């Protein structure tokens, strides 16, 4: 309990503060969008009366702080406004896209977790072999490649040259589960490549230090099998840092997902965000930015709390 009150509550407060700051920044950035919103929606030929009507409807005549309050209060209560372009409620526009994006993020994790475990353990065990520097160079390269380059290369090889996957991830048209998986695979693999490389580096580093510790040497000297030493004695202690990286990686997916969705024309939240900025559909922009930022902030909070909970020294420090 002390852990919760000393470590979790302040972090939670900080996260809420961050969310407020982010919402302010979002509101401010949207204010900067060029042109008068009402004129933009109705077009240049609209009569002054109609523009005035819409201005009132959108509260455009009120001061900026007032509008910020109205917007935030509405958002918290689930009233996200109406899309300026399609005239549908923002929730109807955004939520199906959010579902697609979560599906993509989910499949990415399904690929990422076993892949990073296998590679991380493998690299740590091979640390003294001749190919080790070569392998870690490959992994470092994996962390450095931009995801749109990885995505386009995968697209070129596995959709154009080898027609195994569809070039466009039109997930809404998929009817059966195999079809769904087929459309999701390339974007999910693209995202997984980027984040796996980071996790592997972190896990390798922490595993190597654990493998060289006295208690692991003790376990080896007791005559335990290599496999048992690694899996039962070393791995659990190396997982803490890896878990933290994983949570931060999910947060990273939030940014990466925008680019990857554009590469594969995936109908998710990220592409909707880009499209909405282009057509200046402010209520949709605000909603998506706040959702993505909210997920990001919560995951960062989760990473901190999990790290604290897994680390006895931090737990003790909170007492």
């Amino acid at each position, binding site marked *: 309990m002390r852990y919760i009150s000393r470590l979790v509550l302040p972090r939670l407060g900080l996260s809420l503060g961050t969310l407020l700051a982010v919402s302010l920044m979002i509101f401010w950035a*949207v204010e900067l969008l060029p042109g008068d919103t009402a004129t933009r929606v109705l077009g240049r030929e609209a009569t002054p009366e109609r523009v005035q009507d819409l201005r009132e409807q959108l509260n455009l005549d009120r001061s900026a702080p007032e509008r910020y309050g109205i917007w935030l209060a509405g958002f918290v209560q689930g009233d996200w406004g109406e899309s300026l372009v399609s005239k549908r409620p923002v929730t109807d526009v955004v939520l199906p896209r959010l579902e697609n994006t979560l599906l993509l993020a989910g499949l990415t994790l399904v690929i990422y977790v076993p892949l990073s475990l296998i590679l991380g353990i493998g690299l740590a065990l091979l640390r003294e072999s001749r190919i080790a*520097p070569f392998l870690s160079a490959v992994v470092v390269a994996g962390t*450095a*490649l931009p995801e749109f380059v990885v995505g*386009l290369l995968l697209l070129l090889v596995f959709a154009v040259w080898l027609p195994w996957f569809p070039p466009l991830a039109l997930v809404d048209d998929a009817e059966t589960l195999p079809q769904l998986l087929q459309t999701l695979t390339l974007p999910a693999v693209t995202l997984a490549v980027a984040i796996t490389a980071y996790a592997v580096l972190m896990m390798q580093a922490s595993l190597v230090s654990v493998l060289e510790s006295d208690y692991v040497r003790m376990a080896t000297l007791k005559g335990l099998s290599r496999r048992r030493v690694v899996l039962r004695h070393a791995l659990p202690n190396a997982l803490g840092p890896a878990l933290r990286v994983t949570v931060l*990686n999910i947060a990273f997916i939030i940014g990466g997902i925008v*680019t990857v969705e*554009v590469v594969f024309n995936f109908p998710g939240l990220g592409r909707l965000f880009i499209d909405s*900025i282009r057509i200046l559909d402010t209520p949709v922009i605000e909603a998506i930015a706040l959702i993505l*930022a909210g997920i990001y902030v919560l995951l960062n909070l989760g990473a901190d709390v999990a790290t604290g909970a897994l680390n006895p020294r931090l737990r003790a420090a909170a007492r």
Partner: protein
Amino acid sequence: MDLAPAGTPAGGEIGRGWTVSRAAGAVRWLRRQRLAFLIAAGILLLHVGVALTGPVWAPYPPDELLVGDPFKSPSREHLFGTDNFGRDVFSRVVYGERTVLSLSLTAAGLAVVAGSALGLLMAYVRGWLDEVVMRGVDVVLTIPPLILSLLILGGVGASYPVIIATVAFFFAARVATVIRAAALDVVSEDFVTAARLRGESAASIARRELLPNVTSSMLVEFSLRTGYSVLFIAGLSFLGFGSAPPTPDWGLMINEGRSYISSSPWLVLGPSLALASLVVALSLFTDGISDALGLSPFRRAKA
């Protein structure tokens, strides 16, 4: 280069300083010739060389239309082929090097200068100021940079100063935490106390006693942030929030070329090769110098 700056007692190895023994260690390490590092450094030199001299020897002007037929596959006249306007892709990649390097070096440089100043200030002053600024930094660290950058660039327009300022802002917060931690390691050392007792001003202590001891961290941060800036700015250009056509910019070229990827993949492959080789080389280079300077590798989740 003056390797033992003023304020560092001769011979002693303090904190993370640029002391004589530290520099000797770095040289010894380089002699051991880590192959990956040397290759990376070579590729980086090549990139810098292209940025400096490219326009002199590039075969065609980057914007000239129909220097060949549109969509010609790579050949001796057009190493990376031609694009939909009949422009020479290789020449555009060569000219693009300047755009990419100047933007990201400026952004990373600004981030390191601003972040280091902030980090040193926090480490030296401590107390409530440190507390307040650190909370602010924490808030910036938990903001998704791409989402906010896209919003800002969509709002005020994607001009180079705005791009550089936005990227530098998000990265400065990350630099500040690193430099603050490095400076905290030395701030309680005797020579800092001595300087304080001598009655030196805070600014002079920060500059003469703390700064020399965080130089290697700053160097690594600069290298690391340059790589991230290249990635980030290329991503912005790819999404249409960076350089405007017809600027030769790799991210933009990749985006323009991707509609033709099935028939003319070289439109994407040329700039991708340039971009990938630059960021991978920068990343291996960062790894190498942080190893050589005796700093733990700075590997964190992508910004």
